[in-house]
């Protein structure tokens, strides 16, 4: 009776206490996803509130500088709240409201999903509580204050590695504690079914827009679509529309931290093994006894020991490839894009920019790469300054 499988991955590995809640969520999703009123309401919010469609921008200077493939940037950083996370939050919070829930909770790593959830909660009049690893509340202090401004309560999680994984643990624990009036707005294409499917669907607007914008601008599909991958929501959103277009190469860029061959890494496909955790069967960074590894990346949003089950399956089937990108490469790309195009990317998105910088020069000039620029980098400026040895604090 397993549901929500992607190849061998996925499933619903959660405590019995939550089973009725996730079944109820699945039923609500199936009921509303094609409901004309719901679709119209979400569509209006996406246009009028989030600012969609986001631009597909031809990065001409970067293209000429790298001297190879033509590079387009999908500007999810221009969404309201500064990242792609809002797409999913609008969808899930609207659903939560339809389900009669009055309170939402969410985990956050870099704070982008927390900010997006707090934003939509404010808009729709929902009570909101965010769980964030204590380490991340320090790395992303600005986003913590932003969430508070938006009326959310922020809980600093002091267990485990005090990062994204622990924030998910704590949000799940809180959900088992108070499920009747509360919806857990999971922020990535991970966790138990139906979350990987629901989040993918709400994020798939990214790929749909890329496709139509690309057809309009170039009259053809791109050769490569690439995005950074932690849990994998912006990548899945960008990839999904192109899975059937087999000539479009899909590349996910994982956070390698200090290097995929060091213990200070979060590159799940490169270094992980099959496991069952956080509600899903997928790949995880872990030891031989199934203890989850304390992963590391400069990017709080990619600092996660697992990956969404649909990505794990795309990796198994070879439909998408996943590459590790180090802290140093990502910081270089962060600075490069700022200087070259006047766009400061989120350090998460900079992982994809870094890999683009590697492959674009090796490709012919008539090839086209789309990089999903999942978020803006204002939140990272202080951390990057510190990485470069400057004593700058938020």
């Amino acid at each position: 009776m397993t549901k929500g499988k992607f190849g061998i991955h996925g499933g619903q590995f959660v405590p019995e206490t939550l089973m009725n809640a996730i079944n109820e969520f699945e039923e609500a999703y199936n009921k509303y996803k094609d409901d004309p009123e719901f679709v119209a309401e979400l569509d209006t919010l996406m246009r009028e509130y989030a600012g969609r469609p986001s631009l597909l921008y031809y990065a001409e200077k970067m293209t000429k500088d790298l001297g190879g493939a033509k590079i387009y940037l999908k500007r999810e950083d221009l969404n309201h709240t500064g990242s792609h996370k809002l797409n999913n939050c609008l969808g899930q919070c609207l659903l939560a409201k339809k389900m009669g829930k009055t309170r939402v909770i969410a985990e956050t790593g870099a704070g982008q999903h927390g900010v997006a959830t707090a934003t939509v909660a404010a808009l729709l009049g929902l009570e909101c509580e965010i769980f964030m690893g204590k380490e991340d509340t320090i790395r992303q202090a600005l986003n913590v204050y932003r969430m508070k401004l938006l009326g959310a309560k922020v809980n600093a999680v002091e267990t485990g590695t005090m990062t994204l994984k622990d924030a998910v643990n704590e949000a799940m624990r809180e959900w088992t504690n108070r499920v009747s009036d509360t919806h857990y707005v999971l922020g990535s294409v991970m966790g138990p079914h139906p979350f990987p499917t629901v989040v993918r669907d709400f994020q798939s607007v990214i790929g749909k827009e890329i496709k139509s914008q690309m057809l309009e601008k170039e009259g053809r599909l791109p050769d490569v679509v690439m995005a950074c991958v932690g849990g994998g929501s912006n990548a899945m959103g960008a990839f999904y529309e192109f899975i059937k277009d087999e000539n479009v190469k899909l590349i996910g860029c994982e956070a390698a931290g200090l290097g995929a061959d060091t213990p200070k890494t979060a590159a799940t496909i490169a270094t992980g093994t099959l496991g069952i955790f956080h509600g899903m069967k997928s790949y995880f960074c872990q030891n031989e006894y199934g203890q989850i590894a304390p992963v590391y990346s400069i990017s709080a949003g990619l600092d996660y020991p697992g990956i969404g089950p649909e990505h794990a399956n795309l990796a198994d089937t070879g439909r998408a490839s996943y590459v590790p990108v180090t802290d140093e490469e990502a910081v270089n790309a962060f600075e490069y894009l700022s200087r070259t195009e006047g766009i400061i990317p989120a350090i998460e998105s900079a992982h994809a920019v870094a890999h683009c910088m590697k492959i674009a020069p090796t490709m012919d000039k008539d090839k086209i790469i789309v990089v999903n620029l999942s978020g803006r980098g204002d939140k990272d400026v202080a951390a990057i300054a510190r990485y470069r040895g400057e004593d700058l604090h938020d």
Partner: protein
Amino acid sequence: MTDIKSAFQNGKAFIPFVTAGDPDLETTEKLLIEMSKNGADIIEIGIPFSDPIAEGVVIQEADLRSLSAGTTTDKIFDMVKRIRPQIDAALAVMTYMNPIFVYGTEKFMAKCQECGISAVIVPDTPYEEKHELTDYSGKYGIDVISLIAPTSHERIKMIAKEAEGFVYCVSSMGVTGVRSEITTDVGEMVRLVKSVKDIPCAIGFGISTPEQAKKMSESADGVIVGSAIVKIVAKYGKDCIKPVCDYVNSMKEAIS
């Protein structure tokens, strides 16, 4: 050496939980032997997990202490196998799906059988996913214990029909941990189970005092206590054997 079924034939069953390797495996070894002598009918041995999402802070910290001390699944199995002849109580292991899956589910079940462990309790593996365990457990005679929760409602009968060993009735919302009050109608949960299957029901989550245990035992066949015991272990460390045994004794007495 008792099995699950006969563990419920000595009046109401008292089922204590300990995290293996907290503070070290030598202490766990003594605890298993002595708790069995002092009224434990089934002992739940917790195999620590780095990210125990169904546990409250007391057992989370115990898992961390144990893992930091170098405890591994193999070391736990080795210890249990060695001392099994000295333990009268039935044994169950409680852990999460990942430590079992990564160990190799079939190998894990075979090891349980080899060590005289009768059942596994896996709180993050609900009815819909239990095949991950039952595909291998039957061959080695291991019961996969089903949990039902205050939110289970119409799912209870479906779960009970396929339940093995005993049914673990989760008395409270949320994670494991001591609670001052339990408001769930556990009697109703037990009635629903028994309406479809003649199987023992044990109540856990939140129980700490003899009074609570006595009250809970009136509606069920057994009482499970975890965090209250782990708290004693945390307080006394290696010297926890006597205080834990006194506690186990008082709990068994309260429900007898």
